[in-house]
């Protein structure tokens, strides 16, 4: 066990198991997307080098346990043939999680595309005080739990109301989860409380007359979420970021902020709490 550097191995997605010489290989699965031929490859590797099973992680990843250290390079090479790469552990930007985005009937943004863009730019980057997890969810249903990530992104939309199209059926008021719409059938009146609206788009996608129409899609940003021994939910710092490019820029600046202001071993949330969320916002806007 002495001929290899454990922390170096960890950076490449290898996790030492309790049993001597056995490692679990963590893979870089972006946004939970894995194609069918890669699944076959995983199965082959688990049978050939492991013990015939894999472990599905909470971050949509796959780990292949029980790989002997002497087989690691061979396994990596074989995985590489099907485009499978090793994941990240330790104090790094971790694999980006994402829901199915527009493949789901509620999704408002293309989560996988965004996850891949972020992954391409920031995956595995180290030198921060601690790990950095990014999660993307397609709508306010929040299935990916963006508030549990150091940096969480949520798809949102803005909409407009076209009075001439409205039939005052009241369906939008019934589907709205926050009672932001009131419809008065008798006086042909619709009242929209914009401050209550969470931008989920339920009214837009349900309206029989297309009187509610999407005008813009965008992103809410949450920071400082974490689980572990001392869980905290992320704080919404930006309600509506209009472009993907701006989101990427905020991530970039957040990582710089974390690197420069964080103390070694401190999670992003603890840095934010210590320095102040307003200072953070100023640094990234």
């Amino acid at each position: 066990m002495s001929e290899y550097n454990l922390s170096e191995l960890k950076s490449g997605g290898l996790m030492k198991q309790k049993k001597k010489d056995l490692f679990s290989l963590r893979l870089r699965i972006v946004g939970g997307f894995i194609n069918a031929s890669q699944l076959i490859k995983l199965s082959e590797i688990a049978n050939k080098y492991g013990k015939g099973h894999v472990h599905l992680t909470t971050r949509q990843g796959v780990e292949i346990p029980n790989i002997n250290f002497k087989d690691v390079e061979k396994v990596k090479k074989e995985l590489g043939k099907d485009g499978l790469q090793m994941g990240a552990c330790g104090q790094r930007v971790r694999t980006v999680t994402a829901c199915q985005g527009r493949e789901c009937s509620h999704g408002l943004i293309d989560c996988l595309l965004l996850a891949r863009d972020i992954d391409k730019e920031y995956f595995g980057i180290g030198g921060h005080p601690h790990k950095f997890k990014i999660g993307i969810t397609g709508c306010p249903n929040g299935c990916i739990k963006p508030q549990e990530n150091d940096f969480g992104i949520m798809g949102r939309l803005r909409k407009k109301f076209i009075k001439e199209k409205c039939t005052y059926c009241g369906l939008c008021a019934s589907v709205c989860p926050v009672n932001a719409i009131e419809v008065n059938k008798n006086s042909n009146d619709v009242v929209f409380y914009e401050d209550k609206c969470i931008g989920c788009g339920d009214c837009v996608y349900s309206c029989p007359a297309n009187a509610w129409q999407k005008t813009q899609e965008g992103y809410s940003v949450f920071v400082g979420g974490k689980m572990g021994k001392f869980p905290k939910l992320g704080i919404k710092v930006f309600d509506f970021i209009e472009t993907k490019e701006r989101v990427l820029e905020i991530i970039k600046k957040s990582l710089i902020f974390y690197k420069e202001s964080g103390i070694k071993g401190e999670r992003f949330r603890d840095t934010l709490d210590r320095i102040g969320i307003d200072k953070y916002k100023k640094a990234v806007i």
Partner: protein
Amino acid sequence: MNEIKPGSVLDLRGVACPNNFVRAKLKLEEMRSGDILEIIIDDGEPIKNVPRSIKEEGHKIIKAEKINSYFSLLVEKA
């Protein structure tokens, strides 16, 4: 939109998601393009899910009316 008569009526009150939508979908599949189906569904979860699913399948909801705790939807098959 004066008095459009539905060709058939499907009362889905008390039918839970996604069975209510599946039953509507099967019924619509039996019909011809342009035919009208009246669907009666409960307020709450069904009204949150069924109309948007019908729209996603390309059908047109030509009328929606709230009657007490349920909705009547007139759907024109695509």
